Structures are given as structure tokens and as C-alpha cells.
């Protein structure tokens, strides 16, 4: 059984890497799209194996309560997005926005990105973690620029430059963590192994760790879209293909937050006194308020939901900053629910943009009359993402506000204000998008409903009846997070 488990760990990276190579050579796009769905399902199945038997951690890999959740989420959303992507690219080929030649490249990059994210999630080595994020970033940069329009190239360039600087700073932070550990743990790989560092956390140099965390928060925070390093995010979401917007928001932002959490755990168990929490609360608050205000001026539908992702990353950073069992549980739940909701919203928006032939909010009206199914799904998505009951995000935001209120009432008021601001903007836009007389000029689209309904179903279930075992699990992880 042990061998199966270690094999499954290797396969989380091997399956996407091998399939990326194969997909780069498959020129028949329909076959490639199906193959992409199939290997994504295989990766998901492989990750599910890890639930059954968990391998012991070694120098390279680590599977624990914290990352198994995100691995599973990664596999699941990666799979549903591949289904959505198959329908999406069929339409893009029909309209001539993409050519089959680019699709080979697209599918190869899709799997490379999955490999990078899985590596960042499952590795025990801080250097490999960095490398995984870097790989996923480069793959998404290429996909954002795939339409080759002026705006797409601009977005990809901006993303490449900002993400490179962010990643460089994250590496500097990693080097500082190594320097903090090296005097106590000795030179070599041991001082870059997360489990080893955690085990000896009390021996690490606290002053150095503190400075390191600042660089790590800025560096990986750039990838998570925290203000003021968020500038790449709206452009990349708006100009790239919609399946990529879905995985960027749904997965890559989460992976960046996850990496920050790993370092936060280290600091929580070392002799550093609570400074990372203040930093995270501050960044989260600024991010939330800024994004909530920016939501009001958006005229592009994908750009609007991109700012909503920034807003949610702010809430999540804030939640982990507040910490404590409730704060951490709220943060974890919010990450999961946001990931599922936002990717489903992007699936819907992708179909809407294809149906209407535009992403401009002003040109999309009355969706519930012209495309009832898409329209109502968008209504459900916006209601869920804005934090209304009975959806999962309501649960996590409610948990967060109540737990913050207990510690610091003023912070809770600011938090509530930010959430309400964002709520107003989203609901206001939703009414013009979905209701009223439909705007002219629309085509029928074959929407792939299953992924969207599946995601909303889980989010609804999470909001109505959060299973006790899931809460217990999150509470257990929350203890680790400190």
C-alpha cells in the first residue's frame, strides 16, 4: 500500500508533465481536447488515491492535512475546466479567434500549468515550491497572450514583468529563510525542507525570519493579487481565454496563498512574535477596500470579476491574519468556496461573452430573457460570490466577521464595509446584465452546463449543511496554522 501512495505522489506531477509533451504533438484539436479532459480526470483520480493512503513525507514530497485539500481542489477544478475548455475552444475555432496550431500549444501549456501548481502544493522543499509557482506562471503568461491582439500582448507582458519581479522577491525571501536556518541546521538540503524547518522552528533566527516573511508576502502576494502588486491580474483575466481566467482565479491565486501559509506556519512555530499577522491583516484590508471600490468603475465583465477575485484574496489574507481557530477555518473555507464559485462564474461569463460577441457590460442586458439558463446561472453565481445565503461564501464571511468582532470590533466594521461595498457593486451590475429588455445581437451557444451546475451545487451544499467532518478537518488544519 505504501508503494501505491508514493507512486500516486509522483504521478500528480508525472501525469501532467507527460501529457503536456504528448498534447504538444497531437495536431487534431478535438482529440487533443478529449485527451486533455481524460488526463485531467486521471490526475484527479490519482490525487483521490492520496486520500485513501497517505505516504510518509520525505525530502521531496509531503502530503498533510493542509495541502491535501488544495490538491483535491486543484485536481477537481482542473478537470471541470478542461470540460468547459473543450466546448469553449470549439467555438473559438468556429469564429476563427484561434487556429488549431495554437491549440496544440494551448493544451500543452494547460498541463504544464497543472504540473507546476501540483508541484508547488505537494513538495516539501522550499526551492521546488518556488520552481512550481514559476513554472505555472510562465505557462499562464503564454496562454494569456495567445490571442495575439494588442491588448492580449500588453496583458501578457505586464503579467510577465510583474510576476517575474514578484517571483524574484519571493526567491530572496526563500534565501533569507535558508540563512535563518543554516546556522542551526547546517548547510545543505536540510535547511530548505519544510518539515525539517518546522520541527526545528524554535532554533531559527527570528529577526531574519521576520524580514524574510516581508519579502515572501510581497513576492508570492504578487501572484495572489494582493494590492499594490495586483496590477497584472485584471488585464490577464480580461484578455486571456476564459478557461485560463477560471484557473487563474480558481487555482493559481489559491496556490500562491497556500505557499504564504506554509511560511506563516513556520513563523507561528518559531520565536517570532505575531508580526506576520499584522502584515497580513493590513495587506488584506487594503486589498479588500481597494478592490471593492474598483468594482464600481468596471465596464468589462471579465475585468469586473477579476477585481472581485482581488477582493476575495484580500478577505482571505485578512482571515489568516486574524487567525485563531475561527479565523483560519473561515480563511480555508473562503478559499475553497471562492475557488469553486469564481471558476463557475468564469465558465458562465465565457459562454455569455461568446453568445453576445462582446465582454462590454454596457452591451449585455436582459440575459435571463435571451438566454434563460446562462442568465440565471449568472444570477446564482453573483449572489453566491457577493456573499448572500444560502451559499458557502456567506458561511465563511459570517464566521470571519463574528470572530473578528470578538477580537477587534473596529476591524470587523471595516471588513463589513468592504464586503458591503463589493456587494453593492456586484448586485448593481447583475441587475442590468441579467434583467430588463435584452440587448440586440446574440447567438445561441452550446453551454457546457455540467461543470457550472456541479460547482454551484457544491457551494450551495457547503452553505446549507457544512458537513461536520469537513469542519473538524478545517479546525484541525487551523490549529496547525496557529
Amino acid at each position: 500500500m505504501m508503494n501505491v501512495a508514493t507512486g500516486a505522489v509522483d504521478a500528480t506531477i508525472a501525469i501532467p508533465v507527460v501529457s503536456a509533451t504528448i498534447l504538444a504533438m497531437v495536431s487534431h484539436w478535438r482529440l487533443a481536447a478529449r485527451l486533455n479532459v481524460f488526463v485531467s480526470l486521471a490526475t484527479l483520480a490519482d490525487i483521490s488515491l492520496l486520500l485513501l493512503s497517505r505516504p510518509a513525507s520525505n525530502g521531496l514530497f509531503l502530503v498533510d492535512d493542509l495541502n491535501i485539500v488544495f490538491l483535491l481542489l486543484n485536481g477537481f477544478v482542473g478537470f471541470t475546466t478542461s470540460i468547459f475548455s473543450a466546448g469553449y475552444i470549439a467555438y473559438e475555432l468556429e469564429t476563427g479567434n484561434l487556429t488549431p496550431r495554437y491549440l496544440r500549444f494551448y493544451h500543452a501549456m494547460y498541463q504544464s500549468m497543472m504540473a507546476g501548481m501540483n508541484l508547488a502544493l505537494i513538495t516539501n522543499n522550499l526551492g521546488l515550491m518556488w520552481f512550481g509557482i514559476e513554472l505555472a506562471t510562465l505557462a499562464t503568461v503564454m496562454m494569456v497572450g495567445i490571442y495575439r491582439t494588442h491588448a492580449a500582448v500588453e496583458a501578457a507582458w505586464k503579467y510577465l514583468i510583474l510576476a517575474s519581479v514578484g517571483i524574484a522577491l519571493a526567491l530572496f525571501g526563500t534565501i533569507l529563510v535558508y540563512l535563518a536556518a543554516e546556522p542551526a541546521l547546517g548547510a545543505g538540503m536540510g535547511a530548505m525542507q519544510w518539515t525539517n524547518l518546522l520541527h526545528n522552528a524554535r532554533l531559527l533566527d527570528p529577526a531574519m525570519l521576520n524580514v524574510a516573511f516581508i519579502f515572501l508576502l510581497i513576492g508570492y502576494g504578487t501572484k495572489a493579487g494582493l494590492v499594490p502588486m495586483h496590477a497584472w491580474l485584471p488585464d490577464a483575466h480580461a484578455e486571456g481565454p476564459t478557461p485560463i481566467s477560471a484557473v487563474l482565479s480558481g487555482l493559481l491565486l489559491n496556490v500562491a496563498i497556500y505557499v504564504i501559509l506554509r511560511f506563516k506556519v513556520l513563523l507561528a512555530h518559531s520565536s517570532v512574535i505575531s508580526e506576520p499577522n499584522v502584515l497580513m491583516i493590513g495587506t488584506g484590508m487594503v486589498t479588500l477596500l481597494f478592490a471593492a471600490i474598483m468594482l464600481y468603475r468596471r465596464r468589462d465583465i471579465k475585468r469586473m470579476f477579476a477585481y472581485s477575485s482581488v477582493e476575495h484574496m484580500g478577505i482571505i489574507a485578512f482571515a489568516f491574519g486574524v487567525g485563531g481557530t475561527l479565523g483560519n477555518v473561515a480563511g480555508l473555507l473562503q478559499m475553497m468556496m471562492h475557488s469553486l464559485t469564481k471558476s463557475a462564474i468564469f465558465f458562465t461569463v465565457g459562454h455569455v461573452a461568446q453568445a453576445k460577441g462582446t465582454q462590454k457590460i454596457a452591451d449585455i442586458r436582459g440575459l435571463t430573457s435571451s438566454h434563460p439558463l446562462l442568465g440565471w446561472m449568472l444570477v446564482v453565481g453573483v449572489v453566491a460570490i457577493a456573499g448572500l445565503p444560502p451559499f458557502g461564501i456567506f458561511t465563511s464571511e459570517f464566521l470571519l466577521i463574528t470572530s473578528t468582532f470578538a477580537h477587534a470590533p473596529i476591524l470587523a466594521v471595516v471588513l463589513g464595509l468592504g464586503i458591503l461595498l463589493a456587494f453593492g457593486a456586484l448586485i448593481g451590475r447583475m441587475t442590468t446584465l441579467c434583467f430588463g429588455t435584452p440587448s440586440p445581437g446574440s447567438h445561441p451557444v452550446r453551454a457546457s452546463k455540467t461543470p457550472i451546475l456541479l460547482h454551484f451545487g457544491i457551494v450551495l451544499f457547503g452553505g446549507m449543511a457544512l458537513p461536520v467532518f469537513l469542519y473538524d478537518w478545517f479546525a484541525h488544519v487551523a490549529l496547525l496554522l496557529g
Partner: protein
Amino acid sequence: MMVTLVNSIFGPNGALSLAHALSGALVLVSFMMLYQDRLSAVINVLALHSAVLGLAVAWQAWIQAEPQLYITAVIALGFKAMIIPLALHRIVRRLNIHREVEAAVGIGLTMLAGMGLVALSLVVMLHTAAHSAVLAREDVALALATILLGMLMMIARRNAVSQIAGFMSLENGLILAAAGAEGMPLVVEISVTFSIVIAFIVIGVFLFRIRERFDTIDSTALDAFRGELQ
């Protein structure tokens, strides 16, 4: 005379002073990059920057007896000090952008900000790394200064080629920090990864003929690109 010179370099303290001299030279070359007003001059300074890094890393490889660091040194000397600058010169010729470096922030102000950043990084790192080995401490402080100066270059200059130069000098600072951290694993892999990123950026500029950073003072043009203009 010769013996004392050799001793002062290869002796226990001499090893440190040469390592510090090379790291300090890197910061100095970063400053030189900030006040260049022609693109080809920026590229030449970048080549010098990478060459100094190559020497510094080779020296670290020697004093730490870490042979794999020589690979990183060779990457710096060959790829970053020769191939990339040649490619950048070609881009400048092809895109016909010999004209002056467009400064978003004036040169005097940039230099002043640069001095502030160096002071900041020395104060912060020398203070926090008080318990680390002497070699690592000063090295990290100077490396941070190089990184921050690279960021300053990226912010203060508008042209895509000067941004690449800024990013590469930033990355040189990182490699210096990684090489100076005694026994740090994966340094070679990291420097190879960064070389790939840089190749990406340079090829991107060449393929898409990106001349400038996209933000312009004229924000209506920007809004039009973004579809934010009604």
C-alpha cells in the same frame, strides 16, 4: 611583496575582502546603469554587471569549494554577459530605438533614491543578520542593494529594453545572494530557471516588437486598449 599580496587575497580575511569587493562592485555597476542616457550604453553596463557577477560567483565557488557554482558563473559570463547583450543590441538596431532612454523619473532623483535604497538595505540586513557568518551577512546586504536598484531601474525607465536591463540586474543580485549563502542547494537550478525567464522576455520583446512599457501619460489611450472606454 608578491607573497603578501597573494596572502592578503587567498588568506582567511583576504578571501572575504575580495568577495566583498566584487559584491560592492556589483552595486557600483548598478548605479552606473541608472545614469546612462543611451540604450546601447545601458546594454553595455548590463554586460559589465553580469561579468562582475560571474567573477563574484566564481570566487564564491572557489572559497566555498562548491564546484557546481562554477556552472552558475559560466552562465553569468557566457549567457548574461555576452549572448543576451548581443541580442539586445540587435533588438535596438532592428526596432530603431537608439534614441535616449526615456526617464519616467529624472536622473538626479533616481540617483538620490538609489542611495536611499542602498542605505536602507545595509541598515536592515546588517542589523537582522547580526548572528550570521560575516561572509553571508555583508553579501546579503549588498545583494539586497543590487535587487532594489534593479527594481528602481525598472520603475524609473520607460523603455522595454531598459526594463529588461533592470530585471536582469535585479536577478544578478539574487544570484549573488544565493551563491553567498553557504551551501545553499539548488543555486544552479535557480540560475538556469532565471536564464529561461530572461530568454522568454527577450524573445517576447523581439517577436512582439514591444518598444515601451505600456503605461502612457495619456490615460485615454490606455483605457481604449483595455476596453474601458465607452
